């Protein structure tokens, strides 16, 4: 079965690259700065949020570089939110194609997750820039580059898998129930506030702190921050759990998707 999947994958890889390329071309069409926006956007977001939370609300996370803390949260949560939303609508958006030509349908959500993922990789450039500037005194405390950075690709890969799983699941459910588009919009807003993107978990009551462990996004954010902001090595248990979260999400998403994909055609 795995062999069959791989053959299929190889056959449709070209289509996948074309879909991703299409998204890129369309995204930056008629914008003067084009791809530079991918670099600029997270910086501007970080600046706005840093001003709002540290100046207006007098928000502080003691003893660490808040700017790096904040930006790590923003780029990772934004990746998840953007990719899962794009993946969710991808099957319904492409129904004209699905109705006319045989294409393995999982290609659409997967292509979206990869497309937003490439954008995410671009946002790492300004992110690394902010970390480098912390040596020059940006954000008070210095975040030192360290050997644990080698673990970051693994953490990001797990986040990617987790997002693909959620995307597959949502794109499938939304075919049958378009309300999911609206519901998920609300869900991500709530999820955003329930994830310590701009605050630190310590300000929460102890009970909530305990519950936070069951928020997968918290785990991804926290592991990255452990490496970058706190300059520590994440425990093996944590790393194992991230892998588990990613694989479990992909497994559940694929099973739900595969079970229902033949029915899509009647609903789109």
């Amino acid at each position, binding site marked *: 079965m795995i062999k069959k999947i791989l053959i299929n994958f190889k*056959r449709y890889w070209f289509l996948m690259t*074309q879909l991703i390329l299409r998204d890129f*071309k369309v995204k930056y069409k008629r914008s003067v700065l084009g791809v530079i926006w991918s670099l600029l956007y997270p910086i501007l977001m970080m600046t706005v949020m840093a001003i709002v939370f540290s100046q207006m609300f007098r928000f502080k996370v003691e003893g660490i570089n808040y700017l790096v803390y904040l930006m790590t949260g923003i780029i990772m949560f934004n990746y998840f939110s953007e990719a899962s939303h794009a993946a969710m609508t991808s099957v319904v958006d492409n129904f*004209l194609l699905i109705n006319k*030509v*045989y294409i393995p349908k999982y290609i659409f959500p997967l292509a979206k997750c990869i497309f937003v993922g490439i954008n995410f990789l671009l946002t790492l450039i300004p992110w690394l820039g902010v970390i480098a500037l912390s040596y020059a005194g940006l954000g008070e405390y210095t975040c030192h580059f360290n050997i644990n950075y080698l673990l970051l690709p693994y953490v990001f890969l797990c986040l990617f898998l987790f997002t693909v799983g959620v995307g597959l699941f949502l794109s499938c459910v939304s075919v049958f129930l378009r309300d999911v588009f609206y519901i998920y919009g609300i869900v991500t807003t709530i999820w955003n506030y329930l994830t310590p993107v701009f605050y630190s978990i310590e300000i929460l009551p102890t009970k909530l702190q305990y519950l936070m462990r069951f928020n997968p996004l918290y785990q991804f954010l926290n592991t990255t921050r452990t490496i970058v902001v706190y300059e520590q090595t994440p425990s093996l248990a944590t790393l194992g759990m991230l892998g588990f979260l990613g694989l479990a999400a992909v497994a559940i998403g694929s099973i739900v998707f595969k079970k229902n994909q033949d029915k899509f*055609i*009647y609903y789109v």
Partner: protein
Amino acid sequence: MIDIKNVSMKFNLGIEKEFSIKQAFVNFLSPKARKTRKKKEEFWALNDVSFHVDKGEVVGLIGSNGAGKSTLLKVVSGVMKPTKGKVQVNGVISPMIELGAGFDGNLTARENIYLNGAILGYSKKFLQDKFEEIVEFSELREFLDVPVKNFSSGMTAKLAFSIATIVNPEILIVDEILSVGDIKFQEKSKHKMMELIKGGTTVLYVSHSLDSIRELCDKVVWLEHGQIVDIGDTNRICDEYFDKQMGNTKPKKK
């Protein structure tokens, strides 16, 4: 080679209505009514259809509107899974059902050739090799770098046709001979389609033009109300079909 065995295809006409709060409420209150309604809204687009297409054979599909011809093409091309029965296809299918599905108006003609080609299942190398041929055939060389949304419908159709017919198909599925564009291109495209069909490949061909069916097909399948009325010799079945249609009598169900 295509082998179609006892294929049935059920549509649920109620699906559009099913997903509203009102309907859910009604269903909740009277599950019985729901069941009968469901039965009423079942529609069998294909009912126990079986036939076989040999390698290199050109098979025509005829029947009035709504007889299930297009559904059958979709089942064979893999877009739909049959409710019952089995379809076995040996070889790569080139569906020529809809032109230009998957064009992105924001992309240029050049970009769309690659995108559309990928959707139709062409490989990168094949597209690179055939790129010139596609452009040449479409007569749109000077507009290659114009976004397709600025094309006239005729130009879009010409481009789509040129991409779709560049294949050396193993199995060709055709829903009507397409002749698009201006008079000159119509002749050219018709000629190209004929060439493809006559080229010795396996073809499943749907048409309302009995003349072209008589000219091209080795064998004809006559569908009516999702069931096969008759299979066999092209001329005999075309005659019978024509008489039935013009005599305005309903064909017998098998």
